[in-house]
């Protein structure tokens, strides 16, 4: 039953993806700047005939409607075209970069949750304590601080001053990591390469903290306020009246119900993680989708931008589907 519902939701993403494809296509065409001009501007003087030939090759001489049709037709078959600049299939470029982005997003999410869960719970249990005030002030700071700024501060402190952590990249190549999944921390664990574990974690630390700080702040605040509410509820009084210990009351009865609104917010944060990674990847030289798409936008590399944005959209939709499924497990009143 649940499997069928999930399948229905997956199928329902097709029209969403279709809409995303049309939007990104149109937005790219609306931005001023011609891809061929930009390419040629970088390469120096080129004959008008050569530019004409490239325009023809990219179908840029066709009417917009034809271009859109060609793009959608290919995309539907899973062909996202060739990058104008890199002259390679877009799908290959994305597959190369995707694991780095996933690793960063997961790292940030895990960091954010590891901070937010205890902070949110303890702040609620010890409402108005020094710790509560301190962490909520910290959360306010975390929400209002721009990621690039936090990233630069962290680099200045931990890399430039203290020399504890690297500034750039994902791993030291001297660690000799054998790739399995493309998630380097996971790969080093799988291959039992201790040096690589340390190196990849060190490289991941600052970008993940930078990207995850906002998540930690938002989730901690939501969890705190939901916990404050559930801790006041009648079923928590009943749990105490049954003779449950205080930590059972908090971690079982109150937390379980407080997670329901929190999960929704975590789902929304996945969008923030994907959007924020463009800045963070640029600050930390992290070779992921974010940097790929930023460069592609500057180059007006239409197929590459379109392809990357569609992957973003797909990831976002899937992440929300996972959150929705999780939600039904937490909240027995809701079915998919």
């Amino acid at each position, binding site marked *: 039953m649940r499997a069928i519902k999930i399948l229905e939701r997956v199928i329902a993403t097709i029209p969403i993806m279709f809409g995303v494809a049309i939007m990104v296509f149109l937005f790219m065409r609306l931005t001023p700047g011609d891809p061929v001009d930009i390419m040629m501007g970088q390469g120096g003087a080129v004959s008008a005939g050569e530019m004409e030939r490239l325009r023809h090759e990219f179908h840029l001489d066709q009417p917009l409607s034809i271009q859109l049709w060609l793009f959608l037709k290919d995309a539907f078959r899973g062909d996202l075209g060739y990058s104008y600049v890199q002259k390679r299939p877009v799908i290959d470029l994305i597959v190369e970069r995707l694991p780095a982005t996933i690793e960063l997003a997961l790292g940030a999410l895990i960091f954010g949750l590891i901070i937010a869960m205890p902070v949110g719970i303890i702040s609620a249990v010890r409402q108005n304590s020094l710790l509560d005030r301190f962490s909520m002030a910290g959360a306010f700071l975390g929400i209002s601080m721009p990621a690039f700024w936090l990233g630069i501060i962290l680099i200045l402190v931990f890399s430039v001053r203290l020399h504890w952590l690297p500034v750039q990249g994902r791993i030291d190549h001297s660690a000799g990591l054998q790739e399995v999944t493309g998630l380097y921390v996971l790969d080093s664990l799988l291959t039992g390469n201790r040096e690589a574990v340390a190196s990849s974690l060190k490289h991941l630390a600052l970008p993940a903290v930078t990207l995850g700080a906002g998540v930690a702040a938002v989730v901690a605040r939501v969890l705190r306020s939901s916990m404050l509410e559930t801790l006041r509820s009648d079923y928590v009084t009943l749990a105490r009246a049954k003779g449950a210990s205080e930590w059972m009351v908090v971690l079982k009865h109150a937390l379980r*119900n407080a997670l329901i609104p929190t999960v929704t917010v975590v789902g929304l944060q996945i969008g923030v993680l994907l959007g924020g990674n463009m800045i963070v990847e640029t600050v930390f030289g992290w070779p992921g989708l974010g940097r790929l798409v930023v460069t592609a936008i500057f180059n007006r590399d239409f197929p590459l931008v379109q392809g990357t944005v569609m992957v973003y959209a797909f990831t976002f939709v899937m992440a929300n589907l996972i959150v929705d499924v999780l939600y039904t497990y937490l909240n027995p*009143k809701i079915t998919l």
Partner: protein
Amino acid sequence: MNSIQQEILLELRNLSTVYPTKRGLVRAVDGVGFSVKRGQILGIVGESGCGKSTVLLSILRLIRRPGYIDQGQIIFRGQDLRGLSSNAMRNIRGREISMIFQDPLSTLNPAFQIGQQIHESLRLHQVIDGSRSLGPLKMGQRAREKERVLEVMTEVGIPSPVDRYTAYPHQFSGGMQQRALIAIALVCEPALLLADEPTTALDVTIQAQILDLMRRINQNRGTAIILVTHDLGLAAEFCDTIAVMYAGRIVEQGPVDDVVANPQHPYTQGLLACRPRISERGQRVQPIPGNVPDLAELPPGCPFAPRCSYQRGACDEGPIPLVSTSLGNISRCLLHVDYRRQKDWKWTDRVALEA
């Protein structure tokens, strides 16, 4: 009555519980004392906000901060619960003294199955002996626990308990939810059941069923019950003794027949007069005029005086003692204070009133 039934199970002495608020200290319970014998049913009756729930929560020491028990003793089976460690107190809660609440839906945890919630009480107190089962035999203990849960679900009248075990609270009707709560309270066979308006949220026919169930439990198991209600009529039918509360204090207390047939305190008389009676059509219901006082700003004298038709100047002068009346009830009213021995009272109209 045999001697076991005479044994005093719970005795409150001079219990006061307060809630500090922005408007001042709310004296929700002020010097309350009563005792409950084994197998007895005590009713606590009073209007909304008079401190009934606070009495029950104080007994289990579940008053929420910033509220606290200010003074008094809660003597259960000879020991003062206020002196117990929080661990020892947890062993009392749910095992020796259980509580059921007014609003069943909000009291059941929406995230857990009904069966799990009943089972939790059982497991918390290790009532089903698992000491002899080792390793895989733990399974046997689990199965026996589940059996006990199903047994108590049947006892409280939840039909097809095996199917209902895995249901969630929102899938139950209000009456079934209250039965589930009673099952949670009873699964460890406590000696005392605190029932805080257990039928207020239910419709009339379900109310009767739930009360019937509670009476059966009282008779079959000898479970003592403290029933909190704002309905004096209901208490009259159900209880052995009645304590009437007003503004955090007990104003009248006694065996049910005396209190209902011969109410001594003007407030009890008022409660009886405003009870709708089907048998006596045509007789008008007379509500008590005025409103309950603000517990943060109680007058020095009788808090009921402003609403009382017997009110005299002396009522406002100082605290009124709880005294025995000629009938064996005890009442907190100057009507029953012997004016000759209390020279300070200016109670000149007493003779006129008695006439």
